[in-house]
């Protein structure tokens, strides 16, 4: 019989695919005990290595055709590490000399290599030490019969889980994710943003009962209708397939038109730009006809690394991403994360309320030399090669604004004395997301070159409603008229000084308001790349 679940729709779409449950793997336990039969233990070790190589070759087969040359070679490197003579011989020697179990010995040997590679302070080799630890984890689980969780599959499936972190989502092949159904999660958290960017249907706030679903149960996730159906009947599936066909056709049409010039019937225009965090998204933005990159979230560069980034690391990350769409201006936001996204290399105390805590520039300024300084200098250097604007998040006071601007100017001056003579200050902008800024346009319009409304944070601060709390979603409907009024007032002040105001929160993609934004004279709207064709089509319909 069909079971039907509902929840909050975060990212629309339709998926017809089997369910697959994803949970965090239980933490690895490294057993440590003495053994008597050394030869037997060494044979078990050989068997586990062979088993691990089987896993690796399956992963490679899964990714074949989806990943290109170099990315695919990673699996060959894994395979080679599992056969590395030093790793094998040292482990076997240690089994003999210590009379300890293979898992314990292999852990010690691999940790030794991982630590040595990490200590070389080379981002490339540090990444290899992560590879070794991952492989050690796999071999030890095989040796000791602990659960191995693979997040790689070739066919499409609907993920069913309590929660899904942005890291988990990024680690999986998006092609194989037909849809996502979560018990927890927020409307505008990073998992939501990623799902929208990848055009994966996402339903959150679903009843706990959904977790009792068996893997491979047929499901229908129809987020045009807002339902998750378990064991749908053929009639339901047929109906959904028809709807899906119509949707795909409509989207394809909009996408084909997206790269055409976007003006209203009377010739008014607004720049429709993309929010991005990775090269993949920049490429999507380009394919979907984005007029620019309206918000480049640099925090992903921090979050995906295991060690602190140097100025050159920052430079290399941004250069490789900006290269994906060189023709347009990129608005690059300085780091925005806090205690809700802890970094292994920067201990931050846990906070009661991270959204209002020591995050973004507050955290960046407190650890200036470690976090902001290399980032700012890399951005200034990159402004020579690419057209960029620098955007500062979480500005609350005039002092915040002046302080960060003078730091950027200081780094610019310093770089000029160190061989970068022709560098100029890129346009400097601030996020309008703290109510104290939003309601005081007169105080702030003089202080920056451009302004970008972060409506997601502004909405949660205006309503004192946590945006990751599913029970409070209703407030984010009611806040819209207030947001529009604030944006209109701010924009009228900025306009007098000829300064641009853009919107980069969820509201930017809401086609109910596109006309209003045009009327007010907003200069650009920035959204998930997948939304661009839809908003552009809306612009063309307006007078």
């Amino acid at each position: 019989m069909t079971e039907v679940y509902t929840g909050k729709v975060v990212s629309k779409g339709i998926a017809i695919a089997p369910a697959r449950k994803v949970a965090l793997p239980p933490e690895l336990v490294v057993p440590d005990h003495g053994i008597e039969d050394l030869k037997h233990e060494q044979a078990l070790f050989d068997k586990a290595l062979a088993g691990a190589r089987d896993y690796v070759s399956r992963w490679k087969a899964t990714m074949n055709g989806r990943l290109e040359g170099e990315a695919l070679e990673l699996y060959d490197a894994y395979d080679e590490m599992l056969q590395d003579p030093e790793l094998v011989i040292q482990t076997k020697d240690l089994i003999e000399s210590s009379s300890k179990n293979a898992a314990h010995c292999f852990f010690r040997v691999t940790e030794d290599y991982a630590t040595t590679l990490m200590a070389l302070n080379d981002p490339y080799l540090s990444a290899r030490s992560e590879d070794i630890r991952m492989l050690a984890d796999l071999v030890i689980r095989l040796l000791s019969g602990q659960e191995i969780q693979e997040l790689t599959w070739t066919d499409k499936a609907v993920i069913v889980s309590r929660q899904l972190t942005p890291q988990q989502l990024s680690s999986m092949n998006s092609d194989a994710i037909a849809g996502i159904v979560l018990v927890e999660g927020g409307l505008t958290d990073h998992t939501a943003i990623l799902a929208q960017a990848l055009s994966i249907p996402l339903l959150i706030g679903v009843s706990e009962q959904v977790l009792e679903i068996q893997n491979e149960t047929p499901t229908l996730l129809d987020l045009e209708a807002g339902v998750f159906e378990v064991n749908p009947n053929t009639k339901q599936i047929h109906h959904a397939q028809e709807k899906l066909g119509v949707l795909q056709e409509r989207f394809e049409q909009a996408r084909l038109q997206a790269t055409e010039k976007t003006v209203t019937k009377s010739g008014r225009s607004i720049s429709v730009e993309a929010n991005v965090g990775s090269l993949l998204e920049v490429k999507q933005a380009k394919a979907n006809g984005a007029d620019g990159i309206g918000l480049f979230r640099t925090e992903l560069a921090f979050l995906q690394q295991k060690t602190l980034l140097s100025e050159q690391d920052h430079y290399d990350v941004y250069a490789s991403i900006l290269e994906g769409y060189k023709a347009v201006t990129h608005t690059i936001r300085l780091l925005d994360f806090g205690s809700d996204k802890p970094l292994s290399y920067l201990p931050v105390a846990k906070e009661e309320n991270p959204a209002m805590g020591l995050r973004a520039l507050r955290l960046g300024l407190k650890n200036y030399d470690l976090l902001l300084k290399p980032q700012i200098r890399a951005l200034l250097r990159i402004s020579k090669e690419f057209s960029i604007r620098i955007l500062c998040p979480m500005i609350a006071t005039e002092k915040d604004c002046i302080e960060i601007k003078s730091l950027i100017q200081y780094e610019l001056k310093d770089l000029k004395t160190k061989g970068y003579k022709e560098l100029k200050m890129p346009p400097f902008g601030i996020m309008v997301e703290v109510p104290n800024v939003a309601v005081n346009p007169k105080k702030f319009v003089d202080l920056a070159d451009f302004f970008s409304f972060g409506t997601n944070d502004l909405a949660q601060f205006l309503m004192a409603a946590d945006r990751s709390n599913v029970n409070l979603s209703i407030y984010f409907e009611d806040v819209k008229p207030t947001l529009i009024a604030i944006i209109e007032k701010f924009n009228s002040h900025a306009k007098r000084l000829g300064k641009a105001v853009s919107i980069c929160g969820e509201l930017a993609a809401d086609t109910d308001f596109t006309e209003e934004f045009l009327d007010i004279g907003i200069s650009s709207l920035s959204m998930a790349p997948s939304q661009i064709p839809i908003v552009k089509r809306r612009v063309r319909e307006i007078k």
Partner: protein
Amino acid sequence: MTQHTLVLNDPIGFHARTASLFAKTAASFESEVSVYFNEKKANGKSMLSLMTLGVKSKQEIRIEVSGGDEDMALDRLKNLVSSNFIASA
């Protein structure tokens, strides 16, 4: 025993790809192969061991080979490194 000192020109140094090519080439010979860098010694047939040397671009390494086919082995390894790892393993 025979040996040779030369500069590694690869832009990154001994990383997974170059270390792997070196180790594979070394492993195709019977002789023992060691690589010395900054007073550290690595098993030339082990990619992991080579990576732990931390050799960066333009740095000098010493290759030491000893065994029945040492001359041929050293020749091939020299070629591999000086051709910037283009000469096939």
